[in-house]
């Protein structure tokens, strides 16, 4: 016991409360953009879906708020963990992902033509949503793993196989849109992993052959692989004015909704949403709701938030203290880009209807929570990079 406390060295910075709980090194821009998006989502659902559930005007808004609280909590929790720990658990995580996606074939009932959901006591869980994030984390780990073994071609083939296996499972549910997301994040991880350009060229050639085979040759020879409605949905955006078909009707209504919003939106006169012309307005077509209600200004604001998030993901990629972090950040950036491009593109008539959600905007717990977990990973990479830079260690 010393009689007098030792004086604190003058140079040593005072540790703030934020630092002590581990939030001091978070990326504030990504944090704000994420919270702004979910806030915008809750507001939009609150004003636009009041008549959807009779007697419960805030059904979707209240649920989205609950998912937001769960998601943000998970994001902050993941941000505190060193993401490198996930690398050690890659086999376990990958297995868990495959098992959870497979479970839907056993337990889930077919909803809206697909069986992607598992009924839990409190909500319906969609394993393939969280699966995207888990695939990024594990695929990046396997990429590091295989970097120094065997030939590069074998490595590429192995990684492609690891990425396409869950994609194939999701495709069988059948959920084409989400399967394409798995493909996109696989490509992104391989891209950041440094796979040769020639390998990419070969992959594109194979992919192009498959697409042409499925969409053009197989129906032509009388052995269609896609069901009729899937084919319709994929090609309907090429002829939106023909309003006989179901898919083109939806596209047409979405286009009218977005277009009628004009510069500043129709506010409470948003008849496309209010009178039910717009299908799936709380999920797939929520961007059209924003476009109609808040106009170009509102849609541009929303897109800016996504641009901010994607910029921060790419920035985190470059800051990461190791290649593993960069690959995860690249995968997440690609995931966000793909979702925004395909979903918004579908709403404005330049992309086929594939039914994938707009991250943090579309109503739905699985998607909201999975996206926040992904943002948590980005924060973790950012935090670790800052800490290591302070310590002067750089493993790259």
């Amino acid at each position, binding site marked *: 016991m010393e009689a007098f406390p030792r004086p604190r060295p003058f140079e040593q910075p005072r540790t703030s409360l934020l630092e002590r709980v581990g939030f001091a090194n978070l990326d504030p821009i990504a944090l704000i953009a994420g919270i702004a998006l979910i806030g915008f989502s809750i507001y939009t659902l609150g004003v636009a879906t009041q008549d959807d559930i009779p007697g419960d005007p805030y059904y979707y808004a209240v649920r989205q708020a609950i998912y937001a609280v769960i998601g943000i909590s998970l994001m902050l929790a993941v941000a505190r963990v060193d993401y490198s720990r996930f690398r050690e658990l890659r086999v376990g995580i990958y297995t868990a992902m495959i098992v959870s996606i497979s479970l839907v074939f056993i337990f889930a009932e077919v909803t809206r033509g697909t069986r992607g959901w598992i009924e839990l006591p409190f909500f319906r869980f969609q394993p393939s949503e969280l699966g995207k994030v888990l695939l990024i984390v594990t695929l990046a780990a396997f990429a590091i793993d295989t970097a120094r073994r065997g030939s590069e071609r074998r490595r590429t083939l192995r990684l492609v196989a690891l990425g396409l296996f869950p994609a194939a499972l999701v495709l069988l549910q059948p959920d084409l849109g989400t399967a394409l997301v798995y493909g996109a994040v696989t490509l*992104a991880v391989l891209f950041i992993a440094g796979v040769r350009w020639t390998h990419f060229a070969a992959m594109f050639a194979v992919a192009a052959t498959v697409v042409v085979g499925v969409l053009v040759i197989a129906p032509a020879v009388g052995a269609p692989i896609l069901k009729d409605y899937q084919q319709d949905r994929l090609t309907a955006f090429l002829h939106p004015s023909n309003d006989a078909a179901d898919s083109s009707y939806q596209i047409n209504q979405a286009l009218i909704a977005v277009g009628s919003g004009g510069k500043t939106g129709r506010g409470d006169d948003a008849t496309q949403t209010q009178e*039910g012309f717009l299908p799936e307005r709380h999920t797939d077509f929520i961007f059209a709701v924003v476009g109609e209600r808040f106009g*170009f200004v509102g*849609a541009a604001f929303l*897109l800016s938030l996504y641009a901010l998030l994607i910029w921060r993901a790419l920035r985190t990629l470059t*800051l990461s203290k190791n290649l593993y972090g960069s690959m995860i950040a690249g995968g997440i950036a690609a995931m966000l880009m793909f979702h925004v491009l395909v979903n918004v593109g579908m709403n404005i008539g330049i992309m086929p209807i594939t039914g994938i959600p707009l991250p943090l905007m579309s109503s739905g717990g699985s998607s909201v929570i999975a996206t926040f977990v992904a943002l948590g990973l980005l924060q973790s990479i950012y935090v670790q990079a800052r800490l290591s830079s302070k310590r002067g260690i750089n493993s790259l």
Partner: protein
Amino acid sequence: MYGREGDWHGPPVPGQLALRVAILGGVALVMFVIIFLRLWYLEVLSGDQYLAQAQNNQVREFTVQAPRGEILDREGRALVENRSALELQVNTKDLPVGRERRASLFTRLGELSGMTPAEIREEIRKQTRLLPSSPVTLQQDVDFETVYYLRENQSRFPGVSVERVYVRRYPQGSLAAHLLGYVGEVDKEDLAQARFEGLEPGDYVGVGGVESTYDSLLRGVNGATRVPVDASGTPTGRTLTEREPRTGNDLVLSLDADVQAAGEAAIGQFALPGAFVAMKVNNGEILGLGSAPTYDPAAFAQPRLPMATARAIFGDPDDVATTGAPINNRAIAGAYPTGSTFKPVTALGALESGELELGDTVSDGGSVSYGGVTFENAGEVAHGSVDLRRALQVSSDVFFYILGADTNEQEGDGGPIQDWARRLGVGEPTGIDVAEEASGSVPTPDERNQAYARNTDPESPSGETVDITEGEVTDRPWSVGDSVNLSVGQGDLQASPLQMAVAYAAIANGGEVVRPHVGLRIEDPQGRAIQEIAPAPRDQVEIDPDWQRTIMAGLHDAAMSPGGTSYGIFGGYPVEIAGKTGTAETSVGIDQSWYVAVAPYDDPKYVVATTIERGGFGADAAAPATLQILNELLGVNEEKIDQVSGTSAVIE
């Protein structure tokens, strides 16, 4: 992307990775540029064009009428059903604008419907004034040729359509018309009432009878179909949402259609206004209730009620004496003096006052004088020494005159006679579940004296100026003569046949004042009972069993023993009954015939009250009519009734 950020520099990025990140960033940039350009094109450059499309993309809600529940008798026989009818309707909102275009449309429409353009205009004007927002119905039961013609030439008939609607059908014709009531379109003013909450102008609701009292249960809930329409209001195909209409519940009545038919025939045979009630003594279930003259409720299921039919049913509005109108339900809304059928009430009052003991006799010399006025028996017959039982049998007026004068009080609310009338429900609403019941009244000294005080103004005690033609005023105060009149059911007493049936039921069942009801059960459209209707008795009064036995015995003797007032009718009846005739003196100068019967005498099950306006003595019209109703109730074959030679007193 590689710039400074705050106080912290990132690590150097290797060249190969930098290139790939740059490519990824480039892809993102191109993506956002494409999306922004497309949004700019859609919302800013083509915004007006899409806005026009959105405004052309409107929704119209069509109401799908819910069928009303059916009304059945206690055996399940349908009294009111629905049928679907094709109606030729005009939607005024969609009519062409401009005099000439409208005129030519009405000409074409006139050729189609057989109406003149003037009639069409008049009909549209009349119906839109009542129900501004609902379509105007021109014709019902349009034939299919018209439907097809209209469909093929729809463009030449803007705003004209044929709609399938449900209308009421009455398989038993006019049977029980007064009890059933009818349905009509509800208008804006009615909608302010709480019972019409949630309805739209033009929805069908019950008017009168059980259609009105059980309206909310019979009504059902209309469905709606939301259909997208273009700017001209033409559906563009595809239904957005659909809400199925919910059929109303069925109402099962306690009514027996056979008893009802027998009753209507019995009172209808005289071609005079009249009414009857047949009710269960123990629980107030109505087995039959009718009023003559009657009307055909199917008239109200037509889109228009012709003026002549309306006058025939509701009476001429210019004629003051519309009491003869068929719409009036005399069995519950009639307020009449009841004649001698009131005597059992007087007997109970006198017995309670203690002035009359069961063994007491009175010497009936044929007349009695009070205050200088001589009150005589009908026909000036002297019945000699009579006790209560005998007095009821022969209907001795003098016996009851004396009770009225000596045992009743001539001030305040009156005495035990008024008291017992009220206790048994005479002169008060019975609370039956049929709309438009009248309360009637039992005269009291206070009421008459107050009315007289108002009349004798300005020197009168109250000192206000009163116009004699307005309000109830009278030319004299209460006197003992009023009690004498009341004791035999004459004078100012006003009661309905239903009230008399309830009072006799209470005497017969030992004091239970039942709440009469015609509704028995509510069933959902699948036929499952969802509500039993069994209202609790209104009151329980104490009647000394000895008094009750004596009164019932007197009523039995009146019908079944030689010398009884209706012995000539019921003397040979195979079932022992108790019954009382009544002959009410009325202002028209011709007596009103009454009869109230309880049967069987030993074990009372049914009470039947019958009255025939201007029918003469009770035994002339009401008693034979009651006999026909009892035949149906008790299953008595007309031929089994022995003819008795009792030509004795039909006079009272």
